[in-house]
């Protein structure tokens, strides 16, 4: 008798607890390995940022070794600096992050597809702009998450960027045969097309 009552009591208690779930907290995705690894993993979880970095690296590689070297150092530094600025910013609401990401993909894709003859300085300025804005939005997101480890995450992001740009721009620099440059330009056209469609998505309010 006692056993039956006990069992029923447990069952009722469990069901009652199920009716009071804890609230869901919005936060950035973490790897569980610490803030630096969260930063390293950022590009695996944020395809918009990864694609923008890849596009810039390909553009720099297409423009030669001088542009590639400048992008290699300017992009991570600008991303880190933008992130630091974002970490100290509160209440940032506009413009939306997606529209900036979409337009940067569109711009970089067009530059790659048309193989426009940008000087190395222009590539460096572009890297500073892209890195600064994307990093800023990363910083704002980290600040809103309130983990307090934003700087360490930004270090992880910058290190990953350095490796990504080094590999992708080196690949594009070595693309000397005509067919290899065409492959890079086709990839650029696809990035630009994706950026334009993403812009449409954002404007349509579907995201």
């Amino acid at each position, binding site marked *: 008798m006692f056993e039956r009552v006990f069992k029923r009591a447990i069952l009722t208690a469990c069901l009652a607890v*199920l009716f009071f*779930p804890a609230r869901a907290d919005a936060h950035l995705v973490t790897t569980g390995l610490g803030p630096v690894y969260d930063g390293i993993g950022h590009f695996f979880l944020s395809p918009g940022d990864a694609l923008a970095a890849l596009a810039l690296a390909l553009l720099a590689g297409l423009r030669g070794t001088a542009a590639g070297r400048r992008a290699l150092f300017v992009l991570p530094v600008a991303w880190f600096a933008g992130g630091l600025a974002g970490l100290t910013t509160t209440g940032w609401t506009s413009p939306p992050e*997606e529209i900036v990401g979409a337009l940067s993909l569109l711009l970089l894709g067009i530059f790659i597809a048309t193989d426009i003859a940008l000087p190395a300085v222009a590539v460096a300025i572009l890297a500073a702009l892209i890195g600064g804005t994307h990093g800023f939005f990363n910083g704002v997101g980290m600040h809103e998450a309130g983990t307090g480890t934003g700087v360490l995450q930004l270090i992880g992001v910058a290190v990953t960027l350095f490796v990504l740009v080094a590999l992708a721009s080196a690949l594009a620099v070595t693309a000397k045969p005509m067919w290899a440059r065409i492959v890079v330009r086709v990839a650029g*056209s696809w990035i630009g097309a*994706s950026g334009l469609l993403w812009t449409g998505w954002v404007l349509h309010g579907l995201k």
Partner: protein
Amino acid sequence: MKTNSFQSSRRFAWLPATLILLALVPRAQAHIVHGEAGGFGSGFHHPWSGLDHICAMVAVGLWGAQLGGRAMWLLPVVFPMVMSVGGFFGLIGVPLPGQEIGIALSALLLGTMVCAEVRPKHLIWPAILVGAFGFYHGHAHGVELPPGQSGLLYSIGFVIATGTLHLCGITIGLLHRWSAGKLTIRLAGGAILACGVYFLWAAVQPETKETAPEKAKASAVEPANFWQYV
């Protein structure tokens, strides 16, 4: 008797244990990222979902391979780029009259070009023709995009699938170096042309009471949500 009671208790124990575990689940985590795989999957699937799109995109690759040289890569670059412009207009709610007819004409005319192995003097003409049809296809995709998924990954999947279809056409078009292959490609163009005739016939059919609401629902575009960002 004691043994039976023990066994009964053990059998029953899983229920409260499961319920306790369910009740003690941690707070929902990492819910910002959602719809990522679905977004890429649906984007990649979309161009393959209609025979009219497949015909036109493969025809672009075939024609590019027939023309050879720069055309082989220029046409497959032009099509996705202009298609994304069409998709953009579709997404922001700009209407395009005669959409179905335009798509049907794309299969019909591109099939004709491949079947007759038309070689324009300047490369700009194939580029304009392919670009114009790319706009129609992109617009159709733009007004049919499903809500609630990652816009970027949908777009990436969509563009990659389109490019893959072009690559299929180019790969088949590599048969052009053999005389039997030339004939095969032209026959493939003829098949696409026949499909285009069917698509055009279907597109110009008068709307019935049953099909009209479905068509209106499919082509309905929500007003653009542009001004909230200005």
